[in-house]
């Protein structure tokens, strides 16, 4: 009988010990979680396709939706060559490449050193904010699908061409902000996106082939040897 009581007591104390142990763990998690999750709480640029958009996706013949209108997506011919030959004259200096996006003037300027490579109107975030800051391109995709929004501003766009995803320590790569070509509107120089930087497809192609990492097939990841081009997004009042 005594033995049985002792065993019961032991079990009770053991359970109590575990419960007491769990309380500080819960408190710890509650305190630390907001700090850690701060970065992941940034909403995705494409709320519905989020991580799916970070992968190469070609859907020739697919129909998209933008502004409640059906949009026929252009067909994408995938590159078959792994190493795209460098076009003579495109790599004139070894100076650092840098892309500037001015949200106030809605223009993009790409420089290699002090040499202006291109300057063109863009469309930044209207329904979602385009993040400001200093970023690096971490992957280039020949095309992907982007979907998001809701109600009247729902969009679902297959074959978004020449996508250059960028990120930094504050805006994780996983949230999917990018520079890319645009076939569904032509209203550059005015805000028109859900957070990404929209460009005329011909301009996006030119930038895609110029920007680092050097294009290698249809998916090109940046790494330590081939780092992505720097992208600075700012508005006139933030300088």
């Amino acid at each position, binding site marked *: 009988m005594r033995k049985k009581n002792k065993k019961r007591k032991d079990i009770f104390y053991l359970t109590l010990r575990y419960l007491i142990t769990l309380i500080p*763990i819960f408190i710890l998690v509650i305190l630390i979680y907001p700090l850690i999750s701060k970065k992941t709480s940034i909403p995705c640029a494409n709320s519905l396709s989020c991580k799916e958009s970070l992968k190469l996706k070609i859907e020739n013949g697919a129909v998209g939706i933008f*502004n409640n209108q059906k949009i026929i997506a252009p067909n994408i011919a995938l590159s078959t060559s792994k190493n795209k030959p460098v076009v003579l004259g495109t790599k004139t200096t070894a100076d650092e490449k840098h892309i500037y996006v001015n949200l106030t003037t809605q223009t993009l300027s790409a420089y290699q050193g002090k040499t202006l490579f291109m300057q063109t109107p863009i469309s930044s975030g209207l329904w979602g904010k385009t993040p400001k800051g200093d970023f690096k391109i971490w992957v280039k995709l020949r095309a992907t699908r982007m979907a998001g929004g809701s109600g009247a501003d729902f969009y679902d766009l297959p074959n978004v061409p020449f996508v250059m995803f960028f990120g930094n*320590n504050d805006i994780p790569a996983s949230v999917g902000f990018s520079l890319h070509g645009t076939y569904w509107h032509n209203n550059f120089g005015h805000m028109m996106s859900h957070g990404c930087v929209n460009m005329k497809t011909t301009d996006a192609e030119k930038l895609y082939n110029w920007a680092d990492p050097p294009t290698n097939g249809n998916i090109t990841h940046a790494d330590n040897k081939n780092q992505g081009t720097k992208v600075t997004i700012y508005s006139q009042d933030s300088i």
Partner: protein
Amino acid sequence: MFTLKHVLKTVFFIVMAAGLVLFALMQRNSHKTTTNVFSQTITSPTFVIPTPTLLVPVSTPSQTTTMDSPDGTKTLTMIKRQINGLAAYFFYTSNKSDAVDKLIFKKTEGLTESFSIPYNTWSPDNVYFFLKEATPSVNNYYVFYVSGNLLPNNAQYVNIQELFAQKLPDFTLVDVTGWAAPNLVLVNTKTKQEGRDVSFWFDVPGLSFIQLSTYFN
């Protein structure tokens, strides 16, 4: 009873558990880019507002302006010729593949009026384009079929300014900025009474204006 050994065991357990939780949470952020934030002083680059390619032969009185479609497959060309103090404008469309120019529209203007090709002239699907005509009183915006076919009003073009003034007399058209979708032209206006900014879509096939809750600045 709790002994020192028990206390140590409990503390160890807490630390281990917290470590595991932290590790699990860190894993959730593993998609993060590996690049570092760099803080470089940004010198504001000099901006040149892009304009259509302008080839002006100095010795001749004609000017050619071109604008490629967003996908680069088509070109709209404007040729301006000075004739006896007037300016004759000719507009051609062509495919990059065959480079055959098709005359779509021509008009002779006085000294106070002028035509221009807006940067966003092409509809996203290359079916339509629009032109801007600046006059001393208003700016007219003409929408054409790239093919040169007649529009739903059985005319070669639709004058957005004229139609807007007829249909929505309480608003003043300020600007036509571009295309929101293949059939929708973005029209920025102001209310005549309050001066409030309001955007509309001009639906080309329906020849109708749709008021928007968002202002497309």
